[in-house]
């Protein structure tokens, strides 16, 4: 009996050892921070070695009276509302077109995907110069084709966020295109053949075969782009630093500023909780809707 139990214990040893490094890393650097952050959001922790005070839900109350935070939330929502559909439409168009093209396929796929693998910082610097209202080529071209007063892009509080969205769409549509392309190529050929037998033209095939079969993939891309849109930071940091004024300040950028520039860690932790909840809600919606919305 004891020897049997011992053998039973022993059989768990290799597996436990194999998982141990990942488990320790997960516990220390992800799980503990997750819990700690929640606790921290109820304190006035300011970093360094100052003892934090427990202040209840003050941080959360202040958060929703804080103009700066609300502006960053609003900007982020504008970013999401524009970034998500633009990226999806472009990605879907590129994926469908690529699927119907026989020539230059490899080149086109690489060209569209290429921006995704380059660093945000590099391309943000380059786009910053391209958008320069005085010396950049974009406004030079716009003036050349007859637009007398082109926008001042990153220097204008009306256009800066829009310029950042354009760059973000340009940077990432290729990635989602590859996901959609894989989805399109996974649609069984016999569905198209059946549709053709029924006399469906290309457009009807798209409407009644491609789109429904692709809906799980489209739905996933939708969720991925939404979640992605709440993580935007690099472009804002390099191109505008949140400005002009507060016009391009977004959620993660605001968290970064409060935590690592103003050292209001407790307050930033409360903002992080809001970010966490937003993402969780989106994930839950995904969970619930996946079965209803998606037609296989």
């Amino acid at each position, binding site marked *: 009996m004891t020897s049997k139990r011992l053998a039973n214990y022993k059989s768990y040893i290799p597996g436990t050892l194999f998982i141990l490094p*990942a488990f320790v890393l997960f516990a220390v650097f992800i*799980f503990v921070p997750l819990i700690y*952050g929640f606790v921290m959001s109820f304190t006035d922790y300011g970093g360094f070695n100052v003892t934090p005070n427990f202040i209840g839900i003050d941080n959360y109350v202040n958060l929703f009276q804080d103009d700066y935070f609300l502006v960053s939330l609003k900007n982020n929502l504008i970013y999401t509302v524009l970034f998500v559909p633009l990226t999806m439409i472009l990605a879907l168009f590129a994926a469908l077109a*690529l699927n119907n093209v026989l020539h230059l396929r490899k080149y086109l796929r690489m060209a569209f995907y290429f921006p995704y693998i380059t*660093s945000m910082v*590099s391309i943000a*610097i380059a*786009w910053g110069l391209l958008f320069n209202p005085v*010396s950049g080529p974009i406004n030079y071209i716009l003036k050349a084709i007859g637009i007398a007063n082109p926008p001042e892009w990153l220097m204008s509080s009306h256009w800066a966020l829009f310029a950042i969205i354009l760059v973000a769409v340009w940077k990432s549509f290729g990635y989602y295109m590859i996901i959609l392309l894989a989805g399109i190529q996974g649609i069984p050929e016999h569905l198209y053949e059946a549709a053709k037998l029924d006399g469906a033209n290309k457009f009807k095939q798209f409407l009644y075969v491609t789109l429904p079969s692709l809906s799980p993939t489209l739905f996933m891309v939708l969720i991925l782009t939404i979640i992605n849109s709440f993580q935007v930071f690099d472009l804002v*940091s390099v191109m505008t630093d949140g400005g002009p004024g507060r016009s391009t300040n977004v959620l993660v950028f605001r968290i970064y500023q409060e935590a690592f520039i103003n050292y209001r860690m407790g307050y930033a932790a409360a903002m992080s909780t809001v970010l966490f909840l937003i993402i969780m809600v989106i994930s839950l919606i995904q969970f619930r809707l996946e079965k209803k919305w998606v037609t296989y």
Partner: protein
Amino acid sequence: MQDAIAKPKSSKLLYWLLLVVLVIFSLATLFPFLWMISASLRTDVDLFKNPMNWIPQTLYLNNYKEVWTAIPFAQYFLNTVKLSVIITVLQVVICSMSAYAFAKLKVPFKNTIFILFMTNLMMPWHSIMVPQFSVVSSLGLYNSHTGYILIQLFSGFGIFLMRQFFMSLPNELNEAARVDGYNEWKIFWKIMMPLSAASLSTLTIFTFTFMWNDYLAPLIYLNDDVLKTLQLGLKGFQTEHTMDYGLLMAGTVIATIPMVVVFLIGERFFMQSVATTGMKN
């Protein structure tokens, strides 16, 4: 697809029209990179005088020389190579080890731990970066490469990807090896890892690219100039030399070249890693 050839004239015309649109679209996509290269090879005077002459009359290579002395570019470059390589190797090994355990070995509370690990896929790092910073600081690892490396070693995606592959291998393989007197450690290194070369390459390329381009985590964790990475260096350079277009662009071109090389070598694996994301559900 094949019937594009045997189609009536109007749809053939449509096909070529689509191709032309796609080519124009692809050139527009690549335009910023072409402009980057062009600007890096010209003097700023030339650039401002003739903004539309994208093909330089004479190649001006001075920017590529100057960038190495204008900032500690070599130091940044070496730091980035060091961190990307160390993190990639360790992350791939650690993730593969736990993935192997999830796929083939007995682990207490296996499902609970696996679900816990997979929450990492849904939860963005940004939402824990503030408390994580406090934890790392309290361990005395702020402003050190060690601290930055440690926070990057766990990857839910990596574990998921490798577990999928290991599960596709037959259990008889392990049993036969055990009969031959192999222990699990030996099975893992001598049999499992060599078999999973394709998945390993996918994960390696994915992680390396991510680490090479990482910006926010180094921004938070690395403060001393000697510790900084290329992305931080470029950002600092941009703040100081806002109007030195040529120099700035030479810096970004050099920082991008390693990624281009990795991309061209591992294009197949890139596409695979993305397609895997698509199969996640």
